[in-house]
């Protein structure tokens, strides 16, 4: 099974990101090559500590330039914001301890850096939000013919049997259904979905309708596996994760790695298709509730309370 997130390659064509990249390069080169001159141009003098601080800032700018132009990622934009705050701190100190010569140039540089900071914050915030739509793919091979596998999956009410996050799927019409799922931090999210494509034995695709707590869409393809091995299931899920990158990181911290979740969901589907049910152990009695696997029980029979909870 293999999964992949959507790449951040769309940032490569982003004019603002590219502009900031080139701006970093244009600032970084003179800072590294002629730190003394650059420091004088800012009106802060060329004492050794000023020169070395300028070189360090230049190296940072060049790193940001390389990152933004070669492997753009919102992290580089946030890195620039951090760098800007550092620069502003230094310039404020320079303004405070100024001996009067070139004060105007230092003030102008401070104003310029403030403007750059605003641009960087704008770029970082907007580009981070743009990268949060998630796309997950996963695949598994089930030793059953495509028609049977399709039939099992298209019984939507059974999806919660193997999908860890789903609490309930209710069919509400010939092409519509209502979904309820648990989200991190004990929240529940709900949405109505519409089946957008349904080709028996081949494909099921759905899309949440307007007003969903989390906009999402997905498709499952059922492909005949070579050598009579059964069916390759190929799942693609797309959704907008609330809280953006921060929410994603937090979810991951609490053991909700989305790729792993989807892989495990498919594994449980395979178990149902091939053996009739999800196999449980004394150590992981939660069955489909993958989150219950960490931390695990010792591998010994459950107490009456634990058993009641596991069978609930």
């Amino acid at each position, binding site marked *: 099974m293999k999964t992949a997130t959507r790449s951040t390659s769309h940032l490569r064509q982003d004019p603002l990101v590219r502009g900031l990249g080139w701006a970093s390069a244009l600032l970084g080169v003179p800072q590294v090559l002629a730190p003394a001159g650059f420091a004088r141009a800012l009106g802060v003098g060329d004492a050794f500590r000023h020169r070395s601080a300028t070189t360090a800032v230049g190296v940072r700018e060049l790193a940001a330039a390389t990152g933004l132009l070669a492997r753009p990622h919102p992290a580089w934009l946030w890195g620039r914001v951090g760098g800007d705050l550092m620069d502003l701190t230094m310039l404020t100190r320079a303004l405070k301890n100024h001996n009067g010569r070139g004060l105007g140039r230092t003030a102008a540089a401070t104003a310029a850096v403030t403007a750059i900071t605003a641009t960087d914050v704008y770029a970082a915030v907007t580009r981070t939000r743009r990268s949060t739509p998630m796309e997950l793919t996963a695949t598994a091979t089930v030793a059953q013919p495509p028609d049977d596998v399709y039939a099992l999956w298209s019984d939507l009410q059974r999806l919660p049997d193997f999908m860890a996050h789903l609490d309930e799927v209710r069919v509400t019409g010939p092409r519509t259904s209502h979904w309820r799922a648990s989200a991190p931090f004990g929240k529940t999210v709900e949405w109505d979905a519409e089946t957008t494509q349904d080709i028996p034995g081949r494909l099921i695709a759905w899309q949440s309708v307007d007003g969903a707590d989390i906009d999402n869409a997905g498709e499952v393809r059922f492909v005949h596996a070579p050598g009579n091995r059964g069916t390759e299931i190929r799942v693609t899920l797309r959704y907008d994760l609330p809280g953006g990158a921060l929410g994603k990181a937090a979810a991951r911290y609490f053991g909700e790695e989305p790729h792993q979740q989807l892989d495990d969901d498919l594994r449980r589907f395979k178990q149902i298709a091939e053996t009739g049910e999800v196999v449980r152990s004394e150590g992981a009695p939660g069955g489909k509730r993958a989150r219950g696997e960490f931390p695990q029980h010792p*591998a010994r029979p459950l107490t009456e309370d634990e058993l009641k909870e596991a069978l609930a």
Partner: protein
Amino acid sequence: MKANCWTGRNSVEVQDVPDPSILNNRDAIVKITSTAICGSDLHLLDGYVPTMEKGDIMGHEFMGEVVEVGPGISDGKLRVGDRVVVPFPIACGACASCRAELYSCCENTNPNAGISEKFFGHPTAGIYGYSHLTGGFAGGQAEYARVVLADANALKIESDLTDEQVLFLSDILPTGYMGADMCDIQEGDVVAVWGAGPVGQFAMDSARVLGAEKVIAIDKEPYRLDMAAAQGYTTINFEDTDVRSALLELTGGRGPDKCIDAVGMEATHGASHVHLYDRAKQAVRSETDRPHALRQAILSCRSGGVVSVIGVYGGVIDKFPAGAWMNRSLTLRTGQCHVHKYMKPLLGLIERGKLDPTRIITHRLPLTEAPTGYDLFKNKKDHCEKVVLKP
């Protein structure tokens, strides 16, 4: 009920725990009549297998009487009162691996497949009492055990063979047999077996049953070598003999045709500096296994021969002799035993008197003395070869 539980590195304890119950439709509950301590339990005891938890019930070699069956088991398949031997890997019988008779690679029975996959690249089957990496299933060193997918796993014993004659069908007898089976033994073959523990002894017996002309046992414990010699096998004590020279001498300079590593990750070595190197690397966790036996088997095997590995390895090893393996056209074959594939044929061999699994039993103890059994077996005290526990 009473069960033997892992309570930390080098410590097991018999504790009172709840009785097992049906968790899946095709489960059965078995009242255990005989269970055994396996060499691979020692890897768990020593803490070399990760993901053990305090309180985990040990044991994957067990048999008994069915006392309860789940609603998903049809009456014809298994009934209350049936006498069964339970194979250690849990197989579903329906996935591609099971259909290819690779039962220990079953794709459906490890609830912690995600963890197993990170260790091994692909997940492996669930195993009773064998860490959470293999599913976190409770083991069989207990008064009762839950058997998963019991209709596809438990082997019914319908003749009047004793427990001791059939108990080892759960693991070590098929494991030893698979070691010899993977060697593809031809008439006139000389087979060398590293390790004269229970699995090694059964690999030797199986090699002979499959037609080997000469069988050589390599170990350092005189009592184990004596046990092999009593069966007519040639012996080498690696403490006082250079193994490769001795093997060349015994085979006219060719080397053994087929080599079986029945040792695995905790091998010891005659040359102390080599042992020290692996021991040190293992201690800082930059190498998980000590592969002396495997290295020696590869270097000793004749060109074009087969090295069959049934000793358990857990992770990554250093200094694997890839040059010898590649340049001399060796075949390396291995696997956790696909027990289900061998149970019935081996039961037939036992019934016909071709194999006598009871010959290796040296100790019989009540379940409550399981910790003593572990101590005897691990430290090779009192000439201990195999311990059978009676609940």
